[in-house]
């Protein structure tokens, strides 16, 4: 097995995720791109489990499981924020969020 193939896959997926986070305006699509980045990290963790000796047995796979759990928590809270923002402003475009706006419209 040539480990460079999954490593390359992970690297390219991470690049695509970065591109998506910077390119997309829709907050849900930004979250999808974040999922791509987390998956790239998981691919690299699991591949490192095969290629890197000296760590504990299956340490990479255990870390990948932890990252999956973190991603599930992240997407839950992230979507709650997106839906709440949509309810208040009726928009999901991230570049229209005014960070200095303290007034809460009803």
């Amino acid at each position, binding site marked *: *097995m*040539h*480990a*460079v*193939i*999954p*490593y*390359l*896959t*992970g*690297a*390219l*997926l*991470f*690049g*695509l*995720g*970065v*591109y*998506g986070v*910077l*390119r*997309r*305006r829709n907050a*849900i*699509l930004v*979250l*999808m791109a974040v*999922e*791509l980045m987390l998956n790239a990290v*998981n*691919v*690299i963790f*699991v591949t490192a489990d*095969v*290629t890197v000796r000296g760590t504990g*047995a*299956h*340490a990479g*796979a*255990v870390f*990948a*499981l*932890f990252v*999956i759990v973190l*991603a*599930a*928590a*992240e*997407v*839950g*809270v992230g*979507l*709650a*924020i*997106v*839906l*709440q923002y*949509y309810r208040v402003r009726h928009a999901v475009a991230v570049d229209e969020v005014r960070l200095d706006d303290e007034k809460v419209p*009803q």
Partner: protein
Amino acid sequence: MTIANMTVADALLLALGVIAVGSGALVVTSTHLVRAGLYLVVSLGSVAGLYLVLGAELVAWVQVLVYVGAVVVLLLFAVMLTRAPIGPSGDLDRPAWAAAIIGAGVGLGLAALLVGAFHWTLYPLPVPGTAAQMGGEIFGAWVLPFEVLSILLLAALVGAIVLSRPDIGARRNAEADTH
């Protein structure tokens, strides 16, 4: 470094990797919100296939259950709840050049780093790890992070409920208005 010394595992890894990266590219470029979600399913599914080839069985099935099953369904629910249009929408993207430069820089930089580190080295195919082994690891060496993670999940649960309950936020606003 020829194509001739590729094994079946290599061919599988290559095919799954191409599918994952290709549908990942469609996720970040598609103009249909729902289609982006469905391409995400394809991408995450082929990543699960990569895990299977790499011998991480449990991670592959957790990936299918949690990512393809739960996270994507949650994302599609959010697409529906924000009344996204079914057809293509033209206002999904910002100007591309900065994102393209940074994304390509990060992706190709990481790729160059990893190719430089691992070259075309042949590694023995791993023995498929069983769920029992992984369970022993998690509840042995990694039990403290596991418990911390359960507290984090509880915090995320409470946070999501507080965020999405309108009455909690509204009461605070009413108090602020009376002051």
